[in-house]
């Protein structure tokens, strides 16, 4: 559908929020908790914060949670009984306050979980998720969305995108049918489109490189000392993957509680030394520089080659969260200049 534009007054926002909550949908919104801001259940709009560059964790958990119970089982003397995943019990979720980078992150995730074979748990969750995006008025030195094809006011991946105008009121862009359904909950709040330009109300994020240049360079410099130089300080903690909105690598384990249990899928990281370790002791990527190279190659070469999408949206979380100060934007900028 073509994008429809409206004005939503500052004072209408809490009303819309309450209407969505009253509709029975699960609403998750950014909430401050000590030093973090994350998507959480909120009792009322007063708990919702708009004071964040990006949330501490990305929005991906709504469709790809840290731990997913794939099915339950019961073991007994006579054998095993499996209870399949209850797909029909997946609720409708509204993610309120998603930044454009996070909204764009669902594209690469969806590509991974649907290429060749459909991961129906992921796709059902995503289908039942409505993304209410909020453009960025502020960016920090770690943001680089504009270098990987995004921008602080991009509508990609959102169902409705709100942009705060100079008056404090909002430009609402209704992007999809799911967005229309939200609008239909309180159509009176969506007034005639404002005349003010969206662009002047967005954060400025400088273009440092392009994703195409990174692809060209990493394909050319697979064998290079640059990986060793950049990964020298990496401690292989995997934090970058855990905060990343597009990282999808996972592990599968069984978790038991007496005779009951569930097979679970948990986040994993190519930066962990055991990720590729064979039972024999052989490790295809035995050193941290190779694992760092894999992280970058996967996002900027293998993913575009195989599933036609880049695995980075420039949110900068990996740089913010890294305990040893590895800065991906800086490293990618250096690679782009090789």
């Amino acid at each position, binding site marked *: 559908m073509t994008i429809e534009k409206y004005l939503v007054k500052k004072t209408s926002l809490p009303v819309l929020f309450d209407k969505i909550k009253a509709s029975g949908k699960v609403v998750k919104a950014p909430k401050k908790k000590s030093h973090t801001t994350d998507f959480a259940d909120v009792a009322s709009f007063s708990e919702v914060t708009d004071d964040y560059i990006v949330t501490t964790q990305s929005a991906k958990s709504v469709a790809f949670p840290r731990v997913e119970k*794939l099915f339950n*089982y019961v*073991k007994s003397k006579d054998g095993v009984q499996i209870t399949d995943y209850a797909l029909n019990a997946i609720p409708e979720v509204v993610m309120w306050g998603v930044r454009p980078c996070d909204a764009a992150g669902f594209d690469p995730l969806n590509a991974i979980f649907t290429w*060749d074979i459909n991961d129906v748990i992921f796709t059902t969750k995503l289908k039942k998720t409505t993304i209410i995006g909020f453009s960025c008025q502020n960016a920090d030195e770690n943001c680089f969305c504009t270098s990987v094809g995004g921008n602080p006011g991009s509508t990609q991946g959102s169902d409705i995108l709100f942009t705060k105008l100079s008056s404090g009121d909002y430009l609402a862009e209704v992007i999809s049918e799911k967005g229309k359904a939200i609008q239909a909950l309180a159509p009176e709040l969506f007034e005639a489109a404002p005349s003010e330009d969206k662009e002047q109300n967005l954060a400025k994020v400088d273009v440092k490189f392009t994703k195409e240049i990174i692809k060209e360079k990493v394909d050319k410099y697979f064998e290079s000392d640059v990986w060793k130089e950049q990964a020298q300080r990496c401690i292989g903690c995997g934090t970058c993957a855990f905060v990343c909105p597009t990282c999808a690598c*996972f592990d599968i384990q069984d978790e038991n509680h007496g005779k009951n249990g569930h*097979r679970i899928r948990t986040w994993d990281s190519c930066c962990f030394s055991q990720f590729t370790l064979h039972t024999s002791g052989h490790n295809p990527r035995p050193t941290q520089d190779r694992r760092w190279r894999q992280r970058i190659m996967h996002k900027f070469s293998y993913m575009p080659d*195989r599933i036609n999408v880049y695995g980075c949206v420039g949110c900068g979380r990996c740089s913010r969260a890294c305990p040893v100060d590895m800065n991906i934007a800086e490293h990618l900028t250096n690679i782009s200049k090789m």
Partner: protein
Amino acid sequence: MEEKNIYKPYLMRVEKITLEAPGVRTFRLKFENEEEANAFEFKAGQFGEYSVIGEGESTFCIASSPTRKGYIECTYREAGRVTSALAKCEEGDVVGFRGPYGNTFPIDEWKGKSLLFIAGGIALPPMRCVIWNALDTRENFKDVTILYGAKNVGDLVYKNELADWEARPDVKLITTVDPGGQTPDWKGEVGFVPAVLEKAAPSSENTVAIVCGPPIMIKFTLPVLEKLGFTEDTIYTTLENRMKCGFGKCGRCNCGPVYVCKDGPVFSYKQLKALPDEY
């Protein structure tokens, strides 16, 4: 798109357990559900995720031939958590299986050719499916040669089948053990696989070589094959990268632009050469 939980395993009953070598067992598995059994198809070279419910999943090839219907077999060495739990299973127990996954040996393209199988140690199981597939359709192939080596006599797997192959006039079987691994009554060769291959010097004319073994064996066998006249597209192998999902999502077996679970596990030497050294 298919609306099925792709992580949910089939339940299969362990019908028969064969102890092949110390710590190495073959399980014959039968579907608990008849509908699933009837719908199930696979081809030589494919693999699956086997699980003991409550302990987790482990990846092995299907070691039986698709020409033998009604069951699948896997052969594994007791090593980690899942294989140790499998080793405690008894006949009649129920295990999980997901699959088949991955590509297959291009056995249809090999019609009219001679086949040379070279395997080392616990790498005979991934080749056993294609060996039996070839022997069960023997009229399609010219000479069939099997060279199989292990550290010592005790470590040789499928001893009954080795005896079968030995007795068959239409199979040339060469078995070898590493120097010092022989017993007083050992009648096979003594020496490492690459050296025994060089000595046996099988013809490369109209022949496909299928090699599977530990990386060190493969490394020294490939130059011998090239010396014998085999080319990079007449040599095949099957890779055994660590895997979790089996369908190109968990990221573990990614090697260059290739997912071993989807694009492999079977690769020609030509394809292998194009990959980064990360397998």
